[in-house]
């Protein structure tokens, strides 16, 4: 496909998080927290005061950083910026939608599964058979 870049081998890349407080707390306990020289963190805690603009800006920032390998985003947060998440198509960083305490994972909303689901639609199967 046009515009696909080669993936450079990268060591010590970060895991970024856009999720609720408990999820971020848990992953920080597991050692993924990073604060760089500019005092920028690799996580955003989403609560009822977080605006959609903040989430969008953080998502764009994380997906444009070279030092991030995986972006974890709670699925209910991804639903707030669904257009942005679905239009993202770079291989790295990988965007993974994860469940949250109050919102279980729904495969119907997952952006990766939405991209590939047309392979299973009856329309595509029927048109191939004609």
């Amino acid at each position: 496909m046009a515009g696909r870049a080669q993936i450079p081998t990268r060591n010590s890349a970060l895991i970024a998080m856009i999720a609720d407080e408990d999820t971020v707390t848990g992953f920080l306990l597991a050692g993924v927290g990073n604060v760089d020289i500019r005092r920028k963190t690799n996580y955003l805690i989403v609560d009822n005061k977080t605006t959609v603009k903040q989430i969008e800006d953080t998502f764009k920032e994380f997906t444009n950083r070279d030092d991030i390998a995986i972006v974890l985003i709670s699925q209910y947060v991804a639903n707030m910026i669904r257009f942005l998440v679905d239009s993202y198509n770079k291989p790295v960083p990988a965007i993974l939608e994860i469940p949250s305490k109050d919102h279980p994972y729904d495969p119907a909303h997952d952006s990766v599964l939405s991209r590939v689901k047309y392979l299973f639609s009856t329309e595509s199967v029927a048109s191939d058979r004609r």
Partner: protein
Amino acid sequence: MAEIVSDQLQRASLDETKVKNEDEEEEECILQFLDSLDAYLTLVNSLSSSLREGWFDLASARQSMGHTRISSKLFDHKVHSASTTINITELDADNPSDPKPQFSLSKWATTKENPSSEVPNNSNLRHRVPIGVLDDGEKSNGTQVSSVVSNDIQKERSKSLTIFGGLVSPKLRTAQVSFETALDKIVEIANARSSMLSSFSQLQLNKKSSS
């Protein structure tokens, strides 16, 4: 005349073999796609379980330690590097049009950047000499190295816990383990995603070339 017919038959046979090979490749690609899709869904389900355990333990720790002691206000905002990071390699470097990144987890690297302190996710320690041939001195040296590594890892783990105070609830330690397990699954999900998208794009290319 006979030569022309034989030539035509040969070409038809070659075409048939070519189509057969293409069909086999496509079937293999479809199988790979379905396998990675199945792995992706299974792993996400498993991740949900690990996360639920982690949230439950965190809630238990919060109840025993108090809400103010486990809060995002206590997070360390001083400059520090992540102890657990990801290594990325490209699986099929010969095919730049179809990138397939491979992710691996590196847990609890120390700040001293001692390579022997890092624990790769598969924990395969390399031995230059088969274990049975090592003499007692070398065996005890190997044991000392692995105990130094596990001490360093324990130090890093404890450092993560100390942001919530010196004495923490055992539930907080259990929550830490649950989220570490969740990280392992996340890396596997990332690899399954990569494989799925790679085989999906291959199928799309095959479809375009055949239509």
